[in-house]
C-alpha cells in the first residue's frame, strides 16, 4: 500500500521526524481557507503516487489566499501520466541550503532492512547510484540488533552528510527506522531531506510503501485506502482477495499462481496477442472465487476473449470448473469466447464438469494462448 505524500508526512510527524507545516485540500475553497488561516509562502503539491509530478506541472507556489486559487484550480483534477490528482498538499516553504537523500527498504539478498543515504538529494537516487556510486552509503541492519546510533553515525560519515547536521541525521534515521519497523514498511523514503538555511534538517517529501501482508496489524490505516488512486476493477478484486492488475490488451487471463499467470501473459504475448489483465485466483480457490474472477475480467469492455489456465496443486480442478459453469450460467460471458486449460489436482473431475456443460478444453498453455489470441481477433 503506497501512501500519498500527505499521509506519509502525517506518519513522519507522529514519529517525530520534522516536516514542514502543511494541510491537505480537496477543493479550491478548502485551499483558500487553509491559506487564509495560515498566510505564508507555500508550495502547492499534487497528491499522486506516480513519479515526476514536478515536471508535469503538479507543483506550484502561492503566497496568500488569493494567490492559491489559480494553482489549486490547475492541479486539482490534473491528469499526471494517467493518474488524476484528487488532492493537493499545501505546505509552508522552507529556505533550503542543501538537499540530502535518506531511505530504508527491504534488501532481499541479505534478508535485512537496508539504509540508503546520500548527500546528493533531490534527484532520482538511481541516477545518483549510476553516476556517483561513491556518493551513496548503504547499511544493512540486522533486525535482531535493530537500530543503534552508531549505525546513523557510520552512514552519515560514509554518505558525506555535513558534520553540523550529523546529530540531527542520526536522530531522524532512528525515528525513520522505528517507523519502518512499526508500520511494517517495504519502503520509507525522504527525498529530499532538506538542510534549511538555519541548519535544521526537515523532510521535504515523504514516500511510504507498506507491506500489504502486514496491513491487518494496522486497522488505523484503513481510512486512508479510500484516498488512494485505484482502478475500480482492481479495487473489486482486492476485496475478494484476488490479485488483479488491469492492462491494456484484449485477451482476458485467469490463472492460479502468480508465476503461472505471468507465464500465461508471456505465452499470449508470444502468440501475438495483448493481455487485458493479470488475474491470479491464488491457491485453493473455491468455485465462488473463480466465478467472481470471471466476472471481474469480463467486466472490462476491452476484453474480447478469455483464457483460463489452471494447473492444480492446492487448487482443485473440479472447483474451478464449477465456478466457471456458474459464471457462464449467469450469462455474463459466452463459452464461445473462452479457452480453458485445466490440469493437476482433480483434473479428471474438473474436465467431466466442463464436458457435461459443453465447454471444451485444451491440453497445453501454448495451445490455449494461440486459440485465445485467435478468438480475440475473430
Amino acid at each position, binding site marked *: 500500500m503506497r501512501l500519498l505524500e500527505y499521509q506519509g508526512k502525517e506518519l513522519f510527524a507522529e514519529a517525530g521526524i520534522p516536516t514542514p507545516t502543511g494541510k491537505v485540500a480537496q477543493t479550491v475553497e478548502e485551499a483558500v481557507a487553509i491559506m487564509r488561516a495560515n498566510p505564508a509562502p507555500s508550495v502547492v503539491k499534487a497528491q499522486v503516487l506516480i513519479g515526476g509530478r514536478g515536471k508535469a506541472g503538479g507543483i506550484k507556489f502561492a503566497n496568500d489566499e488569493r494567490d492559491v486559487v489559480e494553482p489549486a484550480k490547475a492541479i486539482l483534477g490534473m491528469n499526471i501520466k494517467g493518474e488524476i490528482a484528487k488532492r493537493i498538499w499545501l505546505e509552508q516553504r522552507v529556505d533550503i541550503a542543501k538537499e540530502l537523500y535518506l531511505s530504508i527498504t527491504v534488501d532481499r*539478498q541479505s534478508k535485512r532492512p537496508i539504509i540508503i543515504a546520500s548527500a546528493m538529494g533531490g534527484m532520482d537516487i538511481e541516477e545518483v547510484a549510476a553516476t556517483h556510486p561513491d556518493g551513496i552509503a548503504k547499511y544493512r541492519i540486522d533486525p535482531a540488533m535493530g537500530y543503534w546510533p552508531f549505525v546513523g553515525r557510520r552512514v552519515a560519515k560514509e554518505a558525506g552528510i555535513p558534520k553540523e547536521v550529523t546529530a540531527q541525521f542520526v536522530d531522524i534515521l532512528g525515528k525513520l527506522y522505528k517507523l519502518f519497523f512499526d508500520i511494517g514498511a517495504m519502503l520509507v523514503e525522504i527525498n529530499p531531506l532538506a538542510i534549511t538555511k538555519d541548519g535544521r534538517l526537515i523532510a521535504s517529501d515523504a514516500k511510504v510503501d507498506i507491506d500489504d501482508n502486514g496491513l491487518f496489524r494496522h486497522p488505523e490505516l484503513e481510512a486512508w485506502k479510500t484516498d488512494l488512486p485505484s482502478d475500480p476493477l482492481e479495487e473489486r478484486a482486492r476485496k475478494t482477495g484476488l490479485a488483479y492488475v488491469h492492462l491494456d490488451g484484449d485477451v482476458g487471463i485467469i490463472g492460479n499462481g*502468480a508465476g*503461472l*499467470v*505471468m507465464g500465461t501473459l508471456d505465452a499470449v504475448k508470444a502468440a501475438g496477442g495483448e493481455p487485458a489483465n493479470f488475474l491470479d485466483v491464488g491457491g485453493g480457490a473455491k468455485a465462488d472465487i473463480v466465478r467472481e474472477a470471471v466476472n471481474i475480467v469480463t467486466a472490462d469492455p476491452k476484453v474480447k476473449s478469455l483464457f483460463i489456465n489452471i*494447473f492444480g*496443486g492446492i487448487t482443485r480442478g473440479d472447483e474451478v470448473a464449477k465456478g466457471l459453469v456458474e459464471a457462464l450460467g449467469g450469462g455474463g460471458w459466452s463459452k464461445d469466447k473462452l479457452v480453458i486449460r485445466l*490440469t493437476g489436482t482433480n483434473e479428471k473431475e474438473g474436465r467431466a464438469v466442463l464436458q457435461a456443460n459443453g465447454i471444451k478444453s485444451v491440453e497445453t498453455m501454448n495451445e490455449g494462448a494461440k486459440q485465445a489470441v485467435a478468438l480475440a481477433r475473430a
Partner: protein
Amino acid sequence: MSIYLNKKSIVLVQGITGREGLYHATRMRAYGTNVAGGVTPGKGGQTVEHFSVFDTVSDARARTGADTTVIFVPPPFAADAILEAADAGIGLIICITEGIPVHDMLKVMSVIPDSTRVIGPNCPGIITPGEALAGIMPGHVFSAGRVGLISRSGTLTYEIVDQLTRAGIGQSTCVGIGGDPIIGTVFVDCLRAFERDDATDAVVVVGEIGGTDEEDAADLIRRKHVSKPVVAFIGGRSAPEGKRMGHAGAIVSGSGGTAKAKIAAFESVNVPVADSPADIPSLIARALKLPARV
C-alpha cells in the same frame, strides 16, 4: 540420493487440524511420505485421519523423531510456527502459508540458526519423486529421474515438470522456494546442494521478475561453483514496469530485477534460457546429450 528430502524423512504437519493442513497431510501420506503426525496447540492427544496430534513441535519431535515440518498455519501465526519448529530442533522447515508479513520473515530469518533450513514461505514445498512429498504439489505430474528443479513459482513448476515428465525426463528433487521478497532458501542454496548431489545430472531454474536471485545464481555459476548443466526460464517477461503481479516478490523496479537483466545474466554464463516452458525439455535433453526423443 536427492536434496533436502527423501524417503527416510520423518514429517510433521503444523496446523494439521485445519482444512488445508489435513487435506495435504493426507495427500502427502498417500504419496508415500512418512507423515508422523501433526501439531495444533490445544488439540494434543487427539487423532485426525489416523494422524496423532501434539500440542507443541517440541513434544511431537520428542515422540516421533521428526526432522521435517510442513507449515499450514494462518499468516498472523506462521512466523511463530516457524520459530517453534526451529527452536524444537527441526532441521527442515517448509512453510506453505501465503501472506506472511515481510517484517515477520525479516525477524525470523535474522534469528534462525544457520543449521536450520527454511523453505518458503508462500511456496508449494519440495518433492523427491517416488520417495516423499512435503508440500502441496500434485504428485502425479512428477517422475523420478536425474534432473533437479528449483522454482520461485508453484503452478509454473507443475507446468514445467509436466512437460519434463511427458518428455521422459524424470526429476531428482524439485524445490519450490516461494515467491515472497524474504524467503529462507534461495537459488544459490539449492544449486550448491544439487552440485553435491550424486543423483542429479542437471538443474532447471525457474525464475521470475523482481529481486536478484537469478543474478546471484548466474554469479555462482560464473565463479565456477556449479559444474552441472543448468537451463533456465524467467516468468513475467511481458509484465509492465512498476506493476505488482501477485507475488509480492514479482515487482519490477529499477534496472535490477527485470526479465531482460535476468536473461542476460544467465546467457552470459552460457545457461540457455527457454522462451516457453514447453522448450525446457529439449534444452535439458541437449544439455545432457540425451537421445532426441523430445
